[in-house]
């Protein structure tokens, strides 16, 4: 076993309580961060679900030949921003109105509602600017009488989304900052507990790199372990939410999980590096 690994393992064995405290602190710091991340993820997911419903409805002038409408719908479907363009006949429009709106339940005259082309946009093109641009383009088609897409509603939705995004970044940074400070302080305790050993190492000619390496390994190991414990706790919290609040929570995907645990290891690495370098500078 290399001296670095042996030294790191021995240090953890010699002070098991301090090691456990470090891992627990890292785990809880990352748990708080992960919980916040989970809330942010679910808010984003909810807003995405709402954004998926963004739809442009282009009403067709009465007596337009259905072949022309279908040709136009096919043309619209080829726009880069467009996911689908579906022709809704007057009968289908009435059927939908009777299904969705109570006041149409006893209306049976098909011609009362106009036919339309219902356009859905691809993800990334559902913002107010793109929606307005597609609507304006559709409006230029000769037999299109009117185009509606809930302009104000989309603007509100995107304001909310931007607000949630900015709040998420600011709070995420704050949580990450607090986690870094707590983890740094915890690792500093580990360094101070071995201050005597470090000073003796310096006296017998150890380089700063040699002294630093076991601490870095220790930091990475504790960060990894803390990250995995935090993940387990976050998963358990999500399960509790689902079971008791009947809330269908979105959990982190595999990429996020790997990123989170690697983030824990990096926090441990940088926290250790910072704490031990600061200590060595004073020697």
């Amino acid at each position, binding site marked *: 076993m290399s*001296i670095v690994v042996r030294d790191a393992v021995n240090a953890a064995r*010699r002070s098991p309580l301090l090691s456990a405290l470090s891992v627990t602190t890292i785990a809880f710091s990352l748990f708080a961060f992960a919980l916040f991340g989970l809330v942010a993820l679910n808010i984003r997911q909810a807003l995405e679900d709402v954004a998926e419903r963004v739809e442009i409805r282009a009403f067709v002038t009465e007596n337009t030949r259905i072949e022309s409408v279908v040709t136009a719908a096919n043309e619209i479907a080829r726009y880069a921003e467009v996911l689908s363009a579906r022709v809704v006949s007057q009968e289908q429009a009435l059927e939908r109105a009777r299904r969705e709106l109570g006041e149409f339940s006893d209306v049976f005259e098909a011609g009362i509602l106009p036919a339309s082309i219902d356009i859905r946009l691809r993800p990334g093109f559902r913002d107010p600017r793109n929606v307005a641009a597609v609507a304006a383009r559709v409006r230029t088609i000769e037999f299109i009488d009117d185009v509606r897409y809930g302009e104000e509603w989309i603007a509100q939705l995107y304001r909310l989304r931007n607000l949630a995004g900015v709040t998420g970044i600011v709070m995420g940074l704050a949580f990450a900052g607090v986690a870094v400070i707590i983890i740094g302080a915890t690792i500093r305790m580990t360094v101070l507990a071995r201050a*005597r*050993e470090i*000073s*003796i*190492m*310096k*006296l*017998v*000619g*150890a*380089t*700063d790199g*040699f*002294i630093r390496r076991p601490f870095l390994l220790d930091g990475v190991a504790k960060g990894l372990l803390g990250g995995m414990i935090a993940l387990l706790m976050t998963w358990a919290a999500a399960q509790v939410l689902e079971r008791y609040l009947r809330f269908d929570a979105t959990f982190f995907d595999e990429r996020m999980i790997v990123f989170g645990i690697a983030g824990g290891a990096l926090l441990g690495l940088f926290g250790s590096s910072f704490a031990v370098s600061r200590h060595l500078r004073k020697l």
Partner: protein
Amino acid sequence: MADTLGMIHFFGVTKEYPRSGVALADVSFRLAKGEFAFLTGASGAGKSTILKLAYFDETPTRGEVRVSGVSSKDVTRRDIAQLRRRLGIVFQDFRLLDDRTAEGNVAFALEVTGARSDQIGPRVNRVLTQVGLAAKSKAFPGELSGGEQQRVAIARALVNDPFVLIADEPTGNLDDKATRSVFQLLRDINASGTAVLMATHNLELVRRTDYRRIQMDHGRITSDATPARGAVAELS
């Protein structure tokens, strides 16, 4: 530069601390290869400061310290680490790791220098035999007497074959018998060619030898002399 190898050289060294003021004032001396010199003087005279400057734990405020060709004027942290592998440093309080055995403490000094693992065992055994502690190699510091602990510290200092042993009150915590025994060990080490620079309060020890004596007072060297051979009563 080659003529300074294996030597300690102080050129007009002054050391000032922001709070406590001048610790050393314009100190110059040279310790030759294989020489034994005592640093004597009352507490606060500057003995420990000289030793700290010699192993680059401190840097001079003015002047220059040169040790085995390494100058305080342009020394780097890496130079200091490399130099300390060729110095042996011993303290009054032993500075042993309590959770390692005697051989573990000695091996520690080799491990940190990246010595090959197959060489560590034989070298540790050799120095523990040299200091008379081969039989207690598995003992922890808490199981050893003060004199024995100091022997372990000396073994640790010797294991890298230093050109000089820097000892800061090495007998300060020991009874008379242990003092004599540790001091004899230092003399034996010196006789085998390693220079020794030893700070001590023990004037009895100093008077009974004909080694060079550098007397300090208030940060200055007040005398630097080597008694004529035969002018002292050797330690029994």
